């Protein structure tokens, strides 16, 4: 038995306990990839200190006793998805599931999750919160017009940089490269001045979706092309933009030693990249705002010793050249969304919805903002207390795009990760890697749905 399995059995034991028959007036369990004092610690704090006591008190006023339990899942996102798939396929699992939006199509098509109004009934649409959630953001955990959960918020991606290191290397701060050429030139300057591999652009399968979002998309979108052609409804298998993006990886990791390929290839590489940034061995790290608001949050494990607000700045990711980015933008970003879905196997769908909507009430969302300011789903909940976070939202949401919300996406995303890995590890040239990628795409969605060079 390996460590991962041991962890599942532990989790299963906890889950079966949590899903035990409901004897009291009501009991609900919530699961998230969150651990007290560890990953997403803010979510634990919010749920345990704010939401749970308030909801229990709220129900007590109505004369009902509700017991709430939080299942803290310490594994990776991929392991959590695996856990859900296994739980839901046999009709069990916690009642409220922290959920990544891009999982939705696969789970829906497998018949594992159901729209909110089917789990809880029409009472769902009576909720006053809908007035403050735009149509677009309702789709965060949605598929084909149905809503399966509520998004905690959306996010944006950018280059985080160490002000102290850039200044030491003679660059001007605040720093903002306007093109790939400038980005590479500045990275070279830092490399030569400080003798470090300054730039990290995620690659490889070990980092999972973090590679696709923080690495591949950020490079690809800069060339003006997306993974999917939304007008024609086809996947882009071969394109000069793909080649150009792969060449960027080749330049950074193989030709010029601007990045440290180790972190892209070994397991736990992403944590190493966090550590490397904290310790001043990485000067520029392409990451999402999660890195700012959670990973490096003041007082956390990965905060640089001199303080996040003092030494960390952020720059928009430039397109190859101004105007060359996706949709003609000068800068690029991609947005995803995580949130919470309802488990259709819950014993009391109405109560589960009551908790979910309570979590997304104005008061609870404002309480969450106090713990972790970010872009929230409700338009009446502003980003408070973190001017940098507000600025990210303001400047990057306008140029950001989203992943194709399609069932094949997860597998194609993995194929893209593998493509970057083949280039970074030196196994294949960019051209060969792209051809192998297009082959994989054809085997996933069929040749008719893939665009190739000719």
């Amino acid at each position, binding site marked *: 038995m390996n460590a991962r399995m041991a962890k599942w059995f532990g989790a299963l034991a906890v889950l079966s306990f949590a899903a035990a028959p409901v004897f009291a007036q009501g009991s609900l369990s919530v699961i998230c990839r969150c651990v007290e004092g560890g990953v997403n610690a803010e979510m634990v704090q919010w749920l345990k200190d704010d939401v749970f006591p308030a909801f229990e008190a709220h129900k007590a006023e109505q004369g009902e006793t509700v017991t709430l339990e939080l299942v803290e899942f310490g594994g990776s996102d991929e392991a959590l998805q695996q856990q859900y*798939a296994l739980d839901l396929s046999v009709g069990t699992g916690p009642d409220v599931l922290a959920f990544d939006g891009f999982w939705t199509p696969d789970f829906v098509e*497998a018949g594992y999750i159901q729209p909110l109004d089917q789990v809880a009934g029409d009472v769902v649409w009576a909720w006053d919160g809908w007035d403050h959630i735009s149509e677009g953001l309702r789709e965060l955990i949605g598929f084909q017009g149905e809503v399966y959960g509520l998004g905690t918020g959306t996010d944006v991606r950018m280059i985080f940089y160490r002000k102290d290191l850039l200044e030491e290397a003679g660059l001007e701060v605040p720093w903002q490269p306007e093109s790939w050429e400038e980005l590479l030139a500045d990275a070279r300057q830092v490399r030569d001045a400080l003798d470090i591999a300054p730039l990290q652009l995620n690659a490889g399968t070990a980092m999972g979706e973090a590679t696709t979002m923080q690495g591949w998309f950020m490079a690809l979108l800069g060339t003006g092309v997306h993974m999917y052609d939304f007008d024609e409804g086809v996947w882009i298998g071969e394109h000069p933009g793909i080649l150009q993006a792969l060449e960027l990886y080749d330049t950074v990791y193989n030709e010029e030693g601007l990045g440290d390929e180790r972190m892209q290839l070994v397991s736990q590489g992403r944590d190493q990249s966090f550590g490397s940034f904290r310790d001043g061995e990485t000067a520029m790290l392409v990451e999402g705002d999660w890195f700012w608001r959670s990973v490096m949050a003041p007082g956390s494990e990965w905060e640089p010793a001199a303080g996040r607000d003092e030494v960390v700045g952020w720059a928009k990711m430039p397109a190859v050249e101004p105007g060359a980015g996706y949709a003609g933008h000068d800068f690029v970003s991609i947005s995803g969304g995580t949130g919470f879905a309802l488990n259709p196997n819950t014993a009391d769908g109405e109560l589960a919805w009551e908790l979910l909507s309570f979590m997304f009430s104005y008061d609870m969302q404002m309480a969450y903002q106090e713990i972790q300011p970010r872009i929230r789903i409700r338009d009446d909940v502003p980003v408070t207390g973190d001017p940098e976070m507000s600025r990210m939202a303001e400047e990057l949401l306008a140029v950001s795009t989203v992943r194709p919300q399609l069932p094949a996406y997860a*597998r194609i995303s993995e194929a893209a990760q*593998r493509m970057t890995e*083949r280039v970074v590890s030196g196994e294949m040239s960019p051209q060969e890697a792209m051809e192998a990628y297009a082959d994989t795409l054809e085997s996933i969605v069929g040749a008719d749905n893939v665009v190739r060079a000719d």
Partner: protein
Amino acid sequence: MPSTHQDSTILTRRTGLTLLAPTFAFIGLFLLFPFVWVVAISFTDRTLLGAAAADPQFIGLDNFRQLFDFDSWMRSGEFGRSLVLTVYFVIASLIGQVFLGLGIALAFHRRKGFLRETIFTLVTLAWILPEAAIAFTWTSFLDPNGTLNTALGAVGLTRPDWLLDAPMASIVMFNVWRGTAFSMLLFSAALGNVRPSYLETADVLGANAWQRFRDVLLPMIKAQLATALILVTLWTFNVFTPFLLTQGGPAFQTDIMAIHTYRIAFRYFEFGQGSAIAVIVMLINFVLAGVYLFALKRGEGAR
């Protein structure tokens, strides 16, 4: 076929079968049924996620055709590459384990004392410790700034980044460390059965150490050697523990068969494809087990 014997047995045939029934039921439920089930799934496009989870289709031999698609099967992370890596892994582990096991057994042949007990205990410990625990130990052992490199650095050698630069060598080293005990104990026991008089005769005849080994010891442990070779091959072929060190990476360089199967079936949730791989692996295992049984039979016949 009635015989005089049967009348004198304690149990009637019927009672005997009744008592055996639970065993057969368990074997059927936990061995035969999953076996048939895996074979059946390997002909479908069944997945855990997506539309094929709700409504799997029969797709004939497509899964197998995809495994043996010779245009792409040698690419990193593909089936053919995994087979090749597994062969490397098995051969290197086999040589390491059997030689080391035999070496230790020979070195302490007909000796007793503190050193022998210490070494045997340590080697055996490596075999019986829980895998999750040793995985942590080995991860820090192989870290660029870990125990191994500190030791290498102390004697002025280079300090490679083991899991990145030499992942296959790392997991072979790990597997040899882990599995040598079996060969060592097997050979040690076999050598213990060699009559002292044989060796004394050899000494009287003036045989040197190599001659003693080749002409006296080796013939006596031939059967055990065959057993060790085949069993270690079979185990190593199916071993999953290196996953805890490398997760099959970096860049699929340690994507040995068990890890490959796990990844396809339980990370990508491609149950159909994963089952097809499992079927091929089962066939390979049958062949290996067949060779083992054949060798065992022959060994018995020769005795």
